[in-house]
């Protein structure tokens, strides 16, 4: 899922300073699960904004509410009328949600309350780790389920590099060397031969480096949505 983190409060207070009627809009999917932007976090943030304004002796009307997903028009439609009553919407969705809101309701002023970090999962309660960069050309079959593009600090395809020490990456003793993990896994599966082949340069055009990406699936498109 998408992992995000709330922006620092001071930054949020600064962004919101010019506005009096504020909606803090939570998102009920990824950011709820990673405890960054669900209803609970939206309410807490709304309370923090109110307290700050009270302290500064400034009027404010803040409401916190949440929709299932900010990245789909049908959920946005459920609160469209309500959103129009505010000067500003502080979205606690990921960057996709913020942009979907703006595209669907261009008349709204929408600001981001989160920093969207990565695609990953919770390795334990309170710890989230990045696992996919969305490079568009998965290599997990070669590396037996450990992504070198994401987890190697240099995205090497022929690793481990000379900085790998005692299982850790040269960037930090707290970061596993992805290629050490891959080596161990291949060794266990008797597949170390994979490491002997020179992997050719990756075609990054399937990733963001090829420009912003769109997927079109004619088989599932609705006739009305098709462009001529």
């Amino acid at each position, binding site marked *: 899922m998408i992992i995000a983190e709330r922006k620092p409060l001071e930054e949020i207070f600064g962004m919101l300073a010019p506005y009096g009627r504020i909606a803090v809009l939570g998102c009920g999917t990824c950011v709820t699960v990673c405890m960054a932007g669900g209803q609970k976090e939206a309410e807490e943030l709304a309370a923090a904004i109110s307290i700050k304004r009270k302290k500064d002796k400034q009027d404010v009307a803040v409401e916190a509410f949440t929709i299932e997903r900010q990245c789909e028009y049908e959920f946005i439609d459920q609160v469209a009328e309500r959103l129009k009553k505010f000067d500003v919407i502080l979205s606690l969705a990921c960057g996709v949600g913020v942009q979907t809101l703006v595209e669907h309701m261009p008349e709204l002023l929408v600001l981001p309350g989160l920093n969207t970090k990565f695609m990953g999962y919770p390795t334990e309660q309170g710890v989230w780790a990045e696992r996919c960069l969305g490079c568009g050309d998965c290599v997990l079959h070669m590396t037996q389920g450990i992504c070198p593009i994401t987890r190697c*600090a*240099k995205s090497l395809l022929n690793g*481990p*590099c000379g*900085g*790998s*020490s005692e299982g850790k990456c040269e*960037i930090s003793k707290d970061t596993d060397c992805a290629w050490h993990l891959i080596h161990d896994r291949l060794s266990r599966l008797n597949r170390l031969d994979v490491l*002997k082949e020179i992997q050719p340069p990756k075609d990054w055009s399937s990733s963001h480096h090829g420009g912003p990406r769109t997927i079109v699936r004619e088989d599932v498109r609705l006739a009305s949505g098709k462009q001529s």
Partner: protein
Amino acid sequence: MLAGSNLEKVINSGHFAVTGELGPPKSADLTQLKEHAEAMRDYVDAFNITDNQTAIVRTSSIGVAGVLIQMGLEPVVQMTVRDRNRIALQSDLLGAVALGVKNVLCLSGDHQKFGNEPGAKGVFDIDSMQLLKAFKDMRDEGKFIGGEKLEAPLQVYLGAVANPFADPFEYRVDRLEKKIAAGASFIQTQCIFDIERFKRWMELVRERGLHKKVAILGGVTPIKSLGAAKYMKNNVSGIIIPDELIERLQGAANKKEEGLKIAIETIQQLKEIEGVAGVHIMAIAWEEVVPEIVERAGLYPRPKL
């Protein structure tokens, strides 16, 4: 002969090769670097020029190489994949060769987080293995990575690095073999302080006959002070400094002399190891001792070929 460089000739004629490292400054004033190079002139077969080492912005390796060539000295241009994509790397190889560069060393490069621009975007479009292979293909097949043909043949002597002190240890020989297949004619190793581990690695290298396919130059760094040794031990990844070495320095009255002695002894031991073809001396920030080390290690005068 692949490029006919002095280094290539020394290696091919079976002499124990000596290369020295020069780190470009954080300015375009190369006065001091030129002085160091001049002092080392007769003591090394070629000069390695680091490429923004530890991700600190410095005069470019190719720029410095051009200056050395004007001085009649032979550079080994280091090229990392950290700061340039395949377009720039291939283009810079052409530019370097056009300037008269004959030796190129391919490496990954330290991660940008260690340098003075930690907010930089790391490029890593290709890795060091792919870089070597790309340069080999440019030379041997006359082809760029994308498949297009070069308009004229290219000559270059290619090297790579190896770190016998990195993990997993067993993999380090596989990696060397892979680098040879990718195009390395010579190898410069990480600084050797743990000579026993280096010897174990060389055993595995010889078992596979790899020392006959590539010239291995052992990396040697003279330690200037106890502080420097401790710093390297704790902060530089991929370097192993045994406790005995720290203790030896601790016990020495003259730390600098002891550091020199350790370096010279290391070179003497390297000379005895079957399959070691030379030494690469990395006396960064202590370049002035290189002639003394070379002389005391019995490697002076250098062959004139």
